[in-house]
């Protein structure tokens, strides 16, 4: 068998990527490809799990049994998404434990959107509609990412996400058909979540240090700015239809481009929140650490029970 030099291996690898052949866990891959994926997929997994907190906050206070069942189902789905993504991360040779410690000890981030508080019931509408909407935009693009386990997790997640955005938009629609107070509550939620939702796509292409390599490796298939534009184009008519106004005086349809122009994002705010100074960063990580520590005895007990049962079966 021919012995492949690292250069040859890298060349074969890029040729596979260029031919849209998926990379699978045991295939040779450049160290940086592996590292980039571990960072991106684990960050994505953490976002699913931390994302359960702002919505979990409203389960007991949902205004009807129907809403409660829907919200519960959605938050349960997010737990599953976290699982699929943690599993995909594990195929890259990093343990689940290590991945979770990285989050708890601040070495890895999660989506900055979950550092904003959910103050009113309308926020459940805004989160489902805008936050899941933005996530779907990103995730649909990732269904064609080059790493097999990540792409498969995305396909599964996208199927499950489809109701998340609808249930949020439905909440907004019903509020917008309600009293003046309800309408004001919906508009206020949109006002608070619009800009953070646009920030979910990450820094602008000019600022994004990972984009170029990730595009070459086809980890990413579209840039941050391309996805952000698609999201704005898709969302503005949805807001207009139910009488909500987008909190951006510069928002305007550009006939020539065939896209909406929109105002400047406050990147200082974005970097502040990413850097740990958002309204809820501390609270979110504390909740995760608490869940891990206070759940430890349950995991240990389940393991002890399994061992005892195995012993008994072997007797």
């Amino acid at each position, binding site marked *: *068998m021919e012995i492949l030099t690292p250069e040859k291996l890298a060349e074969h690898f890029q040729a596979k990527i260029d031919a849209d052949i998926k990379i699978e866990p045991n295939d040779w891959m450049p160290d940086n490809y592996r590292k980039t994926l571990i960072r991106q997929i684990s960050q994505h997994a953490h976002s699913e799990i931390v994302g359960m907190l702002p919505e979990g906050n409203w389960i007991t206070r949902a205004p009807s049994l129907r809403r409660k069942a829907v919200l519960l189902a959605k938050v349960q789905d997010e737990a599953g998404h976290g699982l699929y993504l943690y599993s995909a991360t594990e195929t890259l040779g990093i343990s689940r*434990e290590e991945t979770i410690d990285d989050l708890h000890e601040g070495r890895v981030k999660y989506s900055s959107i979950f550092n904003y508080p959910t103050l009113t019931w309308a926020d459940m509408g805004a989160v489902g509609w805008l936050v899941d909407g933005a996530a779907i935009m990103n995730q649909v693009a990732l269904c064609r990412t080059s790493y097999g386990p990540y792409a498969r997790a995305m396909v599964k997640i996208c199927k499950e996400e489809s109701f998340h955005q609808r249930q949020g938009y439905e909440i907004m629609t019903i509020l917008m058909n309600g009293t003046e107070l309800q309408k004001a509550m919906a508009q206020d939620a949109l006002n608070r979540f619009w800009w953070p939702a646009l920030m979910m796509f990450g820094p602008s292409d000019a600022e994004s240090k990972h984009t170029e390599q990730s595009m070459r490796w086809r980890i990413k298939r579209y840039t941050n700015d391309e996805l952000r534009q698609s999201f704005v184009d898709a969302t503005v008519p949805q807001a207009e239809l139910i009488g909500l106004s987008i909190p951006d005086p510069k928002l305007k349809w550009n006939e020539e481009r065939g896209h909406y122009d929109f105002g400047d994002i406050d990147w200082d705010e974005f970097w502040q929140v990413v850097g740990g100074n958002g309204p809820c960063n501390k609270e979110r990580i504390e909740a995760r650490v608490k869940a891990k520590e206070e759940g430890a005895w349950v995991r240990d007990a389940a393991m002890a029970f399994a061992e005892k*049962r195995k012993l008994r079966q072997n007797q």
Partner: protein
Amino acid sequence: MSANEWPLWEVFIRSKQGLNHKHVGSLRAPDAEMALQNARDVYTRRSEGISIWVVQSSLISASDPTEADALFEPADTKIYRHPTFYDLPDGIEHM
């Protein structure tokens, strides 16, 4: 992996009677019974299946991807294993 970390399981689901079980993902659980319960909770939330298999991941033996050419290429050269290799006289449409 720390001592008390639950082992990894691969999950296979039969979507309906008459079809094979198909790999759908993995999860961690202390034993097979709990792995089945967890698989039911996460992988069959929308009528995806009627039967589940779980196999501890460490028990799976896999072929080496670097040997894929040597293992699978010979099959490509044996085109006579396919029906399209054979000429049929005119007048025979289905065989």
